[in-house]
């Protein structure tokens, strides 16, 4: 079925712009109308790093077929999780206030046959993580996947979206966090080597609510995830964390946009990545906009990249746009460094063999971010994933 979404007023986004500079590239005007989004050429600011040729036309007019991906999830007590379609799907799409700013996101909202809806009612504290497995089974057909995560007032929950297998997937994940809720959404991209994945995550954070999004990307040929946040009231807090590990030939791109459109909101962004092998390419673009209304906000964003071998490229672009002087604090940091030989020497001088020393240093690099995820069951799995990435490289030449 084809789903049509009517364009409605979106006071959260458009209405909050109080300055005249709506032309700022940090908050382009979106549209639900697919035709309003020309097919990107690659020269656009938001597409300039992405290898469009490898997207299998997912950014353009790829035929979106009924999906190959298999969905499986658990439903802990108090949670409703199901696939909806028709009127119900229509009703939940746009619940985050998302107005697509890309053609692919507009197409997902218009064309995805179903929506995976996870509902956590008000005041429910979910005792265990809600695990959603999305297993791709075919990369030769393109598919649209729509996910809506709704968290009621004062609810508490953790959702893990686990992407594995082979797929060519355009995805929209909408997250609605009502007032006072405490929510974590972890998105794991553990794809097979041939996967292509474009994903737009849009979160609306309610008054005094806290939202944590963790993007973890290991696998796939091209993965591009936009993790966006805006606020529905004062006092909301967003933590956007990311961990990625790119191998030879892989393109892993993480973009985020925090729209401080409400007073006394907070955001903290930490993305860490490692790169190894010829043609490994990572991109991090951190856009933070502090609107005129957003007095007393606090924001900090950082991106750190660890380059393990020659032939890699890490792009890191923090953007901070401030429209009010009345803020508590705003800052950013970005570093891209080669493997530190002094650390290696120190560990080796204590008898630790080189490969193990190297592993310790990389573990150490990721350690703080893994701890921030706050899902103990995942920590071990992540460290194991880092481990197996490193194992791939034993024979590759390392940076000296």
């Amino acid at each position, binding site marked *: 079925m084809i789903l049509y979404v009517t364009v409605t007023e979106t006071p959260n986004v458009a209405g909050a712009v109080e300055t005249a500079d709506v032309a700022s590239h940090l908050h382009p005007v979106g549209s639900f109308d697919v035709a309003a989004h020309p097919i990107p050429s690659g020269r656009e600011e938001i597409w300039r790093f992405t290898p469009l040729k490898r997207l299998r036309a997912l950014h353009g007019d790829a035929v979106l077929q009924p999906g190959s991906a298999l969905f499986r999830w658990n439903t802990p007590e108090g949670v409703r999780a199901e696939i909806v379609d028709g009127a119900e799907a229509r009703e939940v799409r746009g619940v985050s206030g998302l107005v697509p700013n890309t053609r692919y996101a507009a197409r997902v909202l218009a064309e995805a046959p179903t929506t995976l809806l996870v509902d956590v009612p008000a005041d429910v504290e979910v005792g265990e993580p809600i695990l959603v497995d999305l297993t791709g089974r075919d990369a030769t057909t393109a598919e649209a996947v729509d996910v809506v995560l709704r968290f009621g007032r004062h609810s508490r929950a953790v959702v893990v979206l686990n992407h594995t297998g082979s797929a060519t997937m355009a995805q929209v994940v909408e997250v609605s966090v009502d007032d006072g809720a405490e929510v974590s959404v972890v998105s794991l991209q553990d794809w097979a080597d041939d996967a292509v994945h474009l994903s737009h995550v849009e979160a609306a954070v309610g008054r005094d609510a806290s939202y944590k999004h963790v993007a973890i990307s290991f696998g796939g040929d091209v993965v591009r995830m936009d993790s966006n946040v805006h606020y529905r009231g004062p006092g909301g807090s967003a933590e956007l964390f990311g961990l990625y590990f790119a191998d030879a030939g892989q393109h892993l791109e993480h973009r985020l946009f925090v729209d401080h459109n409400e007073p006394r909101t907070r955001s903290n962004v930490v993305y860490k990545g490692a790169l190894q092998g010829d043609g490994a390419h990572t991109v991090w673009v951190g856009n933070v906009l502090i609107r005129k209304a957003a007095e007393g906000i606090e924001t900090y964003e950082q991106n750190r990249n660890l380059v393990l071998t020659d032939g890699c490229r890490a792009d890191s672009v923090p953007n901070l746009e401030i429209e009010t002087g009345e803020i508590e604090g705003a800052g950013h940091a970005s570093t891209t460094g080669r493997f530190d030989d002094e650390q290696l020497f*120190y560990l080796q001088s204590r008898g630790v063999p080189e490969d193990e020393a190297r592993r310790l240093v990389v573990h150490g690099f990721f350690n703080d971010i893994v701890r921030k995820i706050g899902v103990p069951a995942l920590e071990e799995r992540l460290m194991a994933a880092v481990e197996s990435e490193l194992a791939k490289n034993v024979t590759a030449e390392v940076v000296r």
Partner: protein
Amino acid sequence: MSTLEIRDLHVSVDTEDGPKEILKGVTLTIRAGETHAIMGPNGSGKSTLAYSVAGHPKYQITSGTVTLDGQDVLAMSVDERARAGLFLAMQYPVEVPGVSVSNFLRTAKTAVSGEAPKLRTWIKDVNTAMDRVKMERSFAQRNVNEGFSGGEKKRHEIVQLELIDPAIAVLDETDSGLDIDALRIVSAGVNRFKENGDKGVLLITHYTRILRYIVPDFVHVFVDGRIAEEGGSELAEKLEAEGYAAYVDAPAGAQA
């Protein structure tokens, strides 16, 4: 019983203007049970000697030999040297973000002894080693040397010395940056290590103060990449009184 033999060692570093010779023929033998002190002006090459023996990749050995009980040390990788029984307490210990002291110590001990230490006795050993140098036990949970004060880093080196228990220890200015009490505490740690068996110690220092606690059998004066004079512990007293002027101003090669 171990012997470290350094023979006519020449070492260069790469600079923008090509290789620059730092060590210009160093010969030194450290036998088990002996404590050697090296003193010398800033920039004379003392740390270069220590790093070269440990195998830091920055230093190119252009000629000479280093052997440990006849084994070719220069042919070994850095970690092999450590496992063979060499230990270097560094002048500037390195910070390793995200790696806890406790994990680091256990990994090092496991690597050097070839098997994981028994958990129960290990925790006790670590606590004892830390207590002895008056390092708060909470340091075990902190990242290696990250945010440690100068003196805390040096104490941490001594904790490692005690736990790893090598055959030959090279201590590069372990006494620098220590307060008066810490100097006594660290010296006691080195003396305990020495009493633990027949150990060789090479102590690089600028101050005779530490030599009152750790009494050297031999003192070497290091000037411009060479040993300019050798003697017993009385030589340290002489240096304290007269400084290095006699050596620095003398023409190169004027050895005692």
